[in-house]
Structures are given as C-alpha cells and as structure tokens.
C-alpha cells in the first residue's frame, strides 16, 4: 500500500454520500480528529456515479482526504427510484397461477381519486401480454391441489423469450406458506433459459397477500439490471481510486448492506434516501437528548416528513415507489409535493394556490436568474426579505431579488394586492398545504404533535420550518448545524440491518409455541449468517416483532416481543404486549378477543461505528447580529437581526424575528422565538405559547 507512506497512516475517514435530485451530498468524518467535512456537488444524471468521483477529488483537494484512509464508505442512491419513475427498467415476464393473471392490475381496487370519473391505475411494469398463467395450485395450509404444469412453463419461457424479456418474476398463491411451486418453476426456467434472471416472490419478501408480494418482487426485478450495473461500476471506480472499504448501501429500513447484496436485493434500497434522512435526524436528536421529533426535509419540489418516537424512527409498509406500493419494512416517511420551487398561481375565482407544479431545479425559482418566470415559494421568501442576504448552496447560486419581485408582482397585479402582501399569502398557503399533510400523518399515528420538536433539514426545511412549527402548535425546533447533509450523515452512522419474516397466521395458543420457537431460531441463524456475510465481526443485536391482530380484523399491528417470552412459553406476556400496543394505537383493546399471530419478524443488527463529534462548552451570552435587515414579517415591515451561522458559538442566545444565513440554507425565525446555540451547534428554538 504505497499511498499510506504519504503520511496519512493515522487518518481514518468515514464517508457518507447521498444523491438527491439536484445535488449529491457528502458527509465525511475523520474519526481521530473529529473533523467533519461536508460538500455538495451537482448530480450527473447522464453518468450516474461520476459525481461521486468528483466529490472524492474535491474532498482530497480541500480536506486532504486520502482515498486509502477511507475505512467506511456508505452510499445512498436514487438510481432504483429513478428507474421506476422514468420507466426505464428491465423488460420482465411474470409467471403466476392460471386464472389469476390480473392480480397485479386489479391491485386492491380502491383508487386514490375516488370522486373522479377519470380515476385510473398506472400502466403496469409488466404488461398483461407478458403475464403467463401456469396451471398450479397450492392451498392456504400449504397442501398441494395441483402441481405446476411444467409443459406450460416451457411454453411460457418460449413466449417470454419471443417478447425479448430480460428476466422473469415467479409468484404463486400461498408461497408465503410454502414456496415449493415457485422454486420448482424457477428451477425449470433456470434449466430452460439460464441466461434470464429469475426472482421468486418468496425470496424477495415472503409475506402473505398476493398482490403486495408480487408487486414487490416485480419492483425488484424491474430495477435489478440497472442497480446491479451501477453498483458494479461503483465498486470498480472506488477500487481504482484505492478506496479499501467495501461500499455499503443505505436501505429503506434505515440500515445498510453491502454492494453484493444490493445487486440481488435491489428493492431494499429503493426508499433509502428518505430513510437515511430520518436515521441521520434520529442520531442528531439522540445527541441533543431529544426523543420525540418531527422531521421535515424540504427540497425544491417536495417535502418529506416523519416521526421519531422514543428516539426511534417509525416503520411501515406500503410506501409508494412512483405509482407502486412497496411492501417491505421501510422507515415510514410521508411526502407532499410542496417545496421551495413550488409555483404559486391565482385561479379564476381569485383564489391563490401553491403547487403541486414546481419550477424544480431547472429553471428553478425566478430569483435563481436561470429563466424561471413564475413565482415560487422561494421567491416569496426573497420578496418578504427572509432570503437573499448571502449566496446559496455553497456559493453555487446567487439570488436575484429583482427577478423574484417581478415574478410575485405579476401575481400581485391579478390579486390587486401589494407585492409583499401577495408574497406573504404565498407563504401562508404553502405552509397550510404542509399543515394538512403533517396533521394527517399525526392523526394516523395517533400522536399529539405538541409533544414533538421539529427538526428541519434539506435546503428548504430551515427556511419554512419555524413557520410550519408555529402553525402546528409545536413549542420547539431543533435546527442542526449542517441541514444539507443529514441524509448523508444517516448513512455514515447507520447499522447493518437485515430483516427476516415468517408468516404463520395462527391463533396465539400453546399449540403454536413450538412453531414460534422454531421460526425464531431459524431467523436468528439467518440473521447471524447475513451479518457475517456482510463482513460484520462485532456483537449482534436481534430484534423480534410479531404482526398480530384480533381474529376477524383485517389488518395487523406490529408488536415488539422479548425472545425470553417464547423460550418460557409466556403467552400472557405476548398477549399483554399486544393488548397494550393495540390500546396505544387504537385507543381500545379487547381482553376477550382471540389473538392471531400473522407474521413473526426478526431484524438482525450489526452496530455501525460509534462516532462522536467534538462538542464545545457553552458560553452564556448574547449573540450579536451582523446587521439589521428589513423583513416583512406576517404582513408588517420589521427590522430583523441577520446572524451568520458560522459565527455562532455554543451557549449564545438571541431572539426572533431573526434570519440566520449559512452556506447551504437560511433560517427564518419568527417573532417571539427564543434561540439558543447548544453544544453540538444545533439551534434550539423555543416558540412563544
């Protein structure tokens, strides 16, 4: 290793990289010195991966990062998501039970726009002429009514080939109970067409519910060739640079996995961007001693938000990938099409609206001076005076307030109001759009948001966060020092995490205990083997959950279990935890209700690096504003202190209204807010009651 002779032998870099729509974000930590470097580079959609290398070069130039000193390299990529959204995935065939070829098209029937006669479903990723029915039938108890007809498989392979498919997804009824039919058909396909890749639904995620399982397997196959190709190229590029670390990939479940697995289990990384944002936020929150957080990540076109309860992200299934639901455990993140680039318009009834149309990153808001002419949320912020006092995005964008004023002015001419009043109304409407979606999420989760602190990140989160927090009635906000790289940080700190599932669908009774114990033992073994395969050498943490319900209910709830209870056969403890969970989520429980265990789930965790960032002692004192600027606050002109984030030191205090400018974003702080800089350089905002 000749590079180490250059004198960097002591350095140990851990690098997290997250690709967004416009920028790729780097968060790099040198563990001995605690030095943290962050960086934004424009994405290169035509050559995914090239921007990564540019970033590494810049880190080397600016921070002296030597590739050979990189001991951990974690990457979150949107290649899979983009493949689905742009419909550029593999040409696939689906082999399934004859008589049930339309399961993926019928889906769950209900459509989102129930009041529209034009409501419709998306075109399927596998069109109906590539769905082949194979006579076969497994019963729900795992007994076989009819074996797969292998002659039909041969015909289907020939027909699929004639259609030019690259791979085949095999999904048969009741594979959650016994995947024998899927395995037999897969073996037959492999024999007849070894050049086609094949995924079975049970190997992707063996959960009960045929549509959900099939569609998840299809997503996996659809993105497989692209992700696999991308990861191979990435490995080669990193190796060529001399990076010794095996790249790790962030997963939708908030954990990481190695690239070898990423090539197979592509579907597990589809939502990793949003997930690692929440993981990063949860980590920052724990550092700051907060355990109930509402995260808010606002970009140019959309806002993502999630709840952190007891310091932990919440999990769910059925998150949307483009137009398709993904049914693997994922960090629960909600989304709305409102961001800094959302366009404001006035309708025929003179009602002002914001979004869902967005100016995106090209041309972007009018104030970017790149040809955008329609007023956006960012332009409204500029007109009000909150923005435009410093360069944005690490100096890569200059604000042009005159363009913002002209754009908002065109709307003002139609509303008959002043430019400032129109700008304020744009902000009020944008905030109210976010308000609806956050309130919905909170009521679904059954939480009282007033117990939560808001953590805004992304380019637009700090800009709108305090205004939204005030609307939601939150009392506090925690603004991290580097909001642009929270997702990259999430990857940096994430654990290895593998999920395993056994569907049992049995009543909770002594008779089921042996099966439960066996399932746990098997999954524990799989979990340990998985971690070993990932190269994990440290301690192993196994989390056990069951999806349970009262007999007759058609939904399950996730209930955490102690492995001990199974060993002891303590059914009362299991039932008690379920009743309590049910009461917490649904406000009631049924002591006499018969309980069913639908799934048993195990997560195997290998702890990520335990990182510490330097902290400084707090010095009590007033922060000094750099200068005073004029801002239209809630409709009235006010003199507002402008602070530089880089100048703020722990312990300093100041009060809103205020503007805090930093290299990657600007914080707007409304009147009455008390601000304190904490030891981690977070800004702690407290709003007036």
């Amino acid at each position, binding site marked *: 290793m000749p590079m180490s002779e250059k004198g960097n032998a002591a350095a140990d870099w851990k690098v997290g990289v997250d690709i967004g729509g416009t920028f790729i974000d780097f968060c790099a930590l040198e563990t001995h010195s605690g030095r943290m470097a962050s960086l934004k580079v424009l994405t290169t959609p035509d050559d995914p991966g090239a921007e990564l290398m540019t970033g590494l070069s810049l880190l080397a130039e600016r921070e002296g990062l030597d590739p050979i000193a990189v001991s951990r390299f974690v990457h979150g990529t949107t290649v899979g998501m983009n493949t689905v959204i742009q419909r550029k995935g593999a040409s696939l065939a689906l082999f399934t039970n004859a008589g049930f070829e*339309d399961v993926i098209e019928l889906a769950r029937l209900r459509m989102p726009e129930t009041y529209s006669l034009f*409501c419709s479903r998306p075109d399927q990723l596998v069109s109906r002429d590539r769905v082949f029915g194979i006579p076969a039938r497994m*019963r729900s108890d795992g007994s076989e009514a009819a074996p797969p007809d292998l002659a039909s498989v041969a015909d289907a392979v020939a027909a699929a080939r004639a259609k030019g498919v690259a791979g085949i997804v095999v999904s048969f009824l009741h594979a959650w109970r016994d995947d024998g039919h899927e395995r037999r058909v897969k073996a037959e396909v492999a024999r007849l067409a070894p050049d086609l890749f094949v995924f079975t639904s049970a190997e992707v995620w063996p959960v009960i519910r045929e549509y959900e399982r099939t569609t998840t397997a299809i997503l996996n196959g659809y993105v497989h060739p692209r992700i696999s190709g991308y990861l191979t190229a990435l490995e080669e590029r990193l190796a060529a640079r001399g990076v010794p670390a095996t790249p790790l990939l962030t997963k939708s479940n908030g954990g990481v996995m190695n690239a070898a697995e990423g090539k197979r289990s592509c579907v597990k990384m589809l939502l990793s961007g949003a997930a690692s944002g929440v993981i990063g936020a949860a980590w920052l929150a724990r550092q700051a001693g907060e355990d109930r957080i509402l995260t808010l990540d606002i970009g140019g076109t959309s806002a993502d938000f999630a709840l952190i309860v007891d310091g932990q992200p919440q999990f769910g299934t059925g998150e949307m990938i483009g137009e398709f639901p993904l049914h693997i455990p994922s960090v629960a993140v909600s989304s709305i099409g409102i961001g800094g680039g959302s366009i404001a318009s006035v309708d025929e009834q003179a009602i002002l609206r914001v979004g869902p149309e967005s100016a995106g990153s090209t041309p972007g808001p009018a104030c970017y001076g790149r040809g955008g002419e329609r007023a956006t949320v960012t332009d409204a912020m500029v007109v009000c005076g909150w923005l435009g006092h410093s360069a944005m995005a690490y100096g890569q964008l200059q604000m042009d307030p005159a363009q913002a004023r002209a754009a908002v002015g065109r709307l003002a001419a139609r509303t008959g109001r002043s430019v400032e009043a129109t700008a304020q109304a744009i902000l009020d409407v944008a905030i109210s759009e976010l308000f*609806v979606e956050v309130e*919905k999420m909170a009521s679904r989760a059954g939480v009282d948001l007033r117990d939560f602190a808001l953590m805004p990140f992304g380019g637009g989160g700090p800009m709108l966060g305090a205004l939204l927090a005030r609307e939601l009635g939150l009392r506090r906000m925690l603004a991290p020092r580097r909001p642009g790289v929270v997702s990259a940080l999430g990857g940096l700190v994430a654990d290895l995490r593998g999920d395993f599932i056994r569907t049992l669908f049995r009543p909770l009774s002594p008779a089921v205990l042996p099966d439960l114990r066996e399932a746990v033992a098997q999954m524990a073994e799989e979990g340990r083997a998985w971690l070993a395969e990932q190269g994990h050498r440290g301690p192993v943490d196994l989390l056990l959950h069951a999806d349970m319900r009262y007999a007759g*209910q058609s*939904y399950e709830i996730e209930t955490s279990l102690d492995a001990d209870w199974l060993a002891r056969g303590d059914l009362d403890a299991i039932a008690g935890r379920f009743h309590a969970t049910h009461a917490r989520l*649904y406000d009631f429980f049924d002591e006499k209700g018969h309980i069913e265990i639908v799934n048993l789930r195990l997560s195997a965790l290998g702890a990520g690096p335990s990182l510490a960032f330097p902290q400084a002692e707090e010095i009590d004192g007033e922060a000094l504003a750099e200068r005073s600027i004029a801002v239209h606050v809630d409709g009235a002109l006010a003199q507002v202190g402008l602070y530089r984030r880089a100048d703020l030191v722990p312990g300093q205090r100041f009060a809103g209204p205020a503007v805090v400018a930093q290299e990657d974003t600007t914080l707007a702080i409304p009147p009455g807010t008390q601000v304190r800089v904490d030891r981690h350089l977070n800004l702690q905002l407290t709003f007036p009651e």
Partner: protein
Amino acid sequence: MFDRMNLRVLANHVRAAAENMAHTLQRTAHSAFVKETEDFTVMLMNRKGETFGVPMELGATWFPGLTYGRALAMVDDYRPGDVAFTNDPYACYVATHVPDTHLWKPVFHDGEIVAWTGGHIHNTDMGGAVPASLSRALTEIHQEGIRFPPMKLVNEGVFDEQILRIMVTNVRKPDLNIGDIKALVGALATGERKVLAMIDKFGKQAFLDGVEALLDHAEAEARAMLRDMPDGTWTFSDYADEDSVEANPCRLHVTLTIRGDEALLDFTGSDPQLASSLNVPSGGDPRHTILLVGIYYVLYTLNPKILLNTGLTRPFTCIAPEGTVLNPVFPAAVGMRSLTCARLRSVIFGAFSQAIPDRLPAAPAGNNCIVNVMTTDERTRRTVIAAVNPVVGGGGGMPHRDGTNGSGADAAYLKNTPIEITETETPVEFVRYGLARDSGGAGRWRGGLATDMAFRVFAPDSRITVRNRDRSFFRPWGVLGGRAAGLSDMAVNPGSAEERRLGNVDTAVLQPGDVLSIRSAGGGGRGDPREREPWRVVQDVERGYVSVEAAERDYGVVVRDGRLDEAATRLLRATMPAHGAHFHFGPERDGYEARWTPDAYERLTAILAGLPIHWRFFAKTEIFRRMSGRSGAEGVQHALAQVQARFPNMPAPATGGAG
C-alpha cells in the same frame, strides 16, 4: 368579509380537520365496515347544519352536500359536550337507511354554537328480519331494524346508558355497534377541537365569515361550470333490472334543464315507490345529497380543484315527486337504496353526457356487488360468515383514454381482500379472479373490462348473498358511436353438466364442491370503434382484453397469427356501419323500449301519479302483467282497462287515467 386571497389557507385547515376526524374514526373503530370498507363519513357543518368540510381520502363519497338542518332542529337545548343521533330515514331524511347511524355535536364558543361536527357509520347490523339488516326482498321499514328518531345520545359528555341498552338488546353485533359509535363520538370531539383551534387562529368572526366564503366559493365554481355548458333540456332514462320479487324493470328518468348558471333535475317519470327495499328516501328535498351524488362526480371530473361542500348543490334543484322510488313515503323499505343510487348516478351521467358530450365518459359498469358467504368450516365445524371480494366492473371509455379495468369511475372507493387472506380465514377456494375478455364496450376508447370471480365451497348449504346485483339485462351504455358493454352474470358450476344460471337473483345456496361464478358488467365504449388505432386493438388482443373475433366484429380490425392484417382491416372498416345515435344501449334495452316507448312510460306515469300511493306499485305490476303483445301508450291504456276490469274497486286515476 374573509380575505379571499387567504381562502385556501382556511380551506386547508378545514380539510386537515376533516381528515383528522376521518383518521381518528378509522383508527379507533371496531368493525370491518368502518375500518376496511370505509363506509363512514365525517363532516364539519356551519351553524345551519350545512356541510362545509369533508375528507378527500377516506370514507364514502355520497355526503359532501349533506345538510343536517332538519335533524338539528328536532333536538332541543343543546349543551356543550352533547352528541345527538338518529338512524331513522323517515324522521328527517339525514340517515338514508337504517344501518347508517348519524351523529352530530354542537361546537360552542363563548356560550354560543359556532359550528357542528357530524358523521355517520354503517353499523354491521341494526336488527330486523335479516342479518346485516339489508335485503332487497324486504317491503317495509319495520323489517329493516330498530330505528332511533333524533335524540341526544351523549349529555354533556355522558352517554345515555338507556339508549345503549336498547340498542344492544336489539342488534346482532352489539359490540361492533357500540365500539364504532364511541369511535365516531371521539372523532366528533377531534373535529370540535380543530374548529376551536381555527377560531383561535383566524378569530371567531373571520372563521364564521370564512366558512360562508367556502360555501360561496364552491357555489361560484359550480355556477361557473354550469355557465360553461350550453343552455338546454335533455332527458334520459336508465333501468334497474328488477324492481322487486316481481322482477319488472325499475325505471329512473330525469329531465335536465340548464339555464345560465342553474340546473333543474326533474325526476318525474321515475317509477312509483316499490314494494322492495330499493327506494331512495330523499324526502323530496330539492337538494338532497343522495340525489346529487352523480353531480359531485360530474363536477369533480370537470374540475378536480373544486371544494366539496354544500355550496356545490345550490345551483341545482331536484324534483322527486312524492310516492316515487326517489321519494317514497313511510313505511316503504329503503335498505338497498344503494342499487338504485348506482342507477341514479348513471341517469345523471347520461343527461350530462348529452349536454357536454366532449367532456364526460361513457357509462361505468354500475353494479357494485358486495359478496358475502355463510358456510361451515369443515375443520372446526364452526359457521363462518365472511365478505369475499366485491365484484365491480370497469369505468366507461373516457375522452382521452380507455375506461379503467375492473373498477373505477363511481366504484373506485371499493377495496378487495387478498385471496390468500380470504382462503386462510374462510373455507372457500378461488378458481379465478381477473378481468373478463370482451366485456368492455367497444369504442375509440374502450370501456373498462368486467371482473370475473369464481370460487368453490366445501360445506353443504353454503349461502351466498351478492348485494347490488344489477346490469344483467340493461347494459352500461356507450356514447358517441361507442358500444354498450357486456352484461353481468352469475352461475353455479358454469361449463359443467350441473350448470345453473342464476339470472339477476342476488342469493345462491351452494353444495359441497359447487363453484359460484360471478361476473360484473363492463364499462361502456366511447367514440366510433372504427377510429380506434389498429395497434391498440392488436395490443388488446395480445393482452387478452379483446378476442380475435371481437376485434374483427366490433372494431373491424383483422388479426391473423397475432399480427395486424392492414389490408383486410382497411377493407372491413370501409364496409362497417356507423352507429349514429348519441347512445348505444344494446339489443336488450332496444327490444324493451320498442314496447315500453317514451309515450308508454308517459302514459304509465300519468296513470300511477293519479292513484293513491299504496295502489301505485300494485297497478304498475298488474299493468306489466298485461303488456305482452302490446306496446306504446295505447298498449298501456289497454292493459289498464284489463286491470280495471279485474279489480273493479281500484280507484280511477285522478287525471285522465280512465281515458
């Protein structure tokens, strides 16, 4: 006056409140009806009881224009913490069948009522003659379960235990009812809290003004849409296959008149009230929400940005004469009004399709069958009652794309259950669940395909009910040259020696090994099928949506060995006749209307309107019995004469009936 530039802010807060209520109810409810089927509503109402906010993502789609005014007035002395309720369709026409239990709660601010929160749940059972309280065969409301007139259920935060005990005593699943009602009471409290938060934010007067501005805004949007439509008068009829056990068609008829920014919907000519539970209790309210559901769909389709609230209903006036199927008098049964309401929607769609032909789709399948199974689990010997998938059909061909397959349009709110879940819980085995080839109406844009479902049972005397079965005789219509869709069907053991075709009945008894096959209707086609690009037809053939024969017969597209034969297609299309009329109904309805002409129906309507209400259905049935070999107004008159001869003490119809 509320600052209109900020109306969207208030609208969003209102929507957040309504979504909050809906999620709270769905989250805490006990029954599958509320949690899964989402047969519930919640709403925010102004001081007069007019709905100004509903959720958009959860719940039923029938109630954004509901007015609780009459119900509110039937209870005295509201106090903070009170909740009132009713499920009696005839008390105030807020509930429209007995299982629907409506609750409302005053929102007090500074000692005065500033708004109401309200909503309904569909109770799994309210007692009465049959489980679930619903059957087409019931003939009077007393058979449909216990009814509670408007009264307080909660007094200043305390439930009236006597009322709960009466309910518990009379219904089959009391725990579900009580659990759901308590969940709704919780949701109403959530709504109350959110209303008070809005008053806190906007100020009391601004909130009150803003609510009226929301209603005015919706009204203005509806009026703007009507102004964009041409003035004129259009008539349209559609039929439910069977009006009762008598199995005559039930006709719904509308005369739509658009003048400027207003519309009149005159339902005169619709059948007399029925001796079955298909009646729709509107109370003759000229803006009853249940008469206007089709309007919500039309308006929302034309402009998805509209606010859904009572303001939308203001430009519309309905006339539903007393004693007709759309305005029955006590004690007519009303439990299965949902079947009639589906047909009512297609009548409204048909009327507007003539007014604005370019902008609306063809008829949706319009038969939203809910399938229930009662059988025995051979392993446990226990009786199992379960809902199997709904069997619904496709949407009509749209102006810009094909109708949605297997669901869509006004059926898009329904959900299915995974086959793997059903088979694990219920001793049935599915044989097929998919789309039915050639069931969508042909057209430039094809109608959505029907759903085809078949399953097997294993225990003797397994009883199946298929509520809302319809469209087994009268097809979903096509428009603008597009053709009518395939019919619904139900059969036991199809294709075997034991085959039994079940026509339009909605129940079946199955024996071990029997397979029940249920097919919905499809969606109607839109535009001339000869104008559909041949590649689309070939693609439909490849996908199995259209057979090679139908491609040739209906589209004039010749497919040979999986490929388009361009020359043969050109030749064939040149010789195919066009369908010139606005609607295409199919041979069944054309044949029926050759006898039952518009004149015949005009005559019948006049005769029946002249009879006392309790004679009307009887007279209709007797006249129908005597129509074979007859047609037109004259035929009706002759049939009437025979009826009068047979029943000499039948009163003479009041105006011109005796002829």
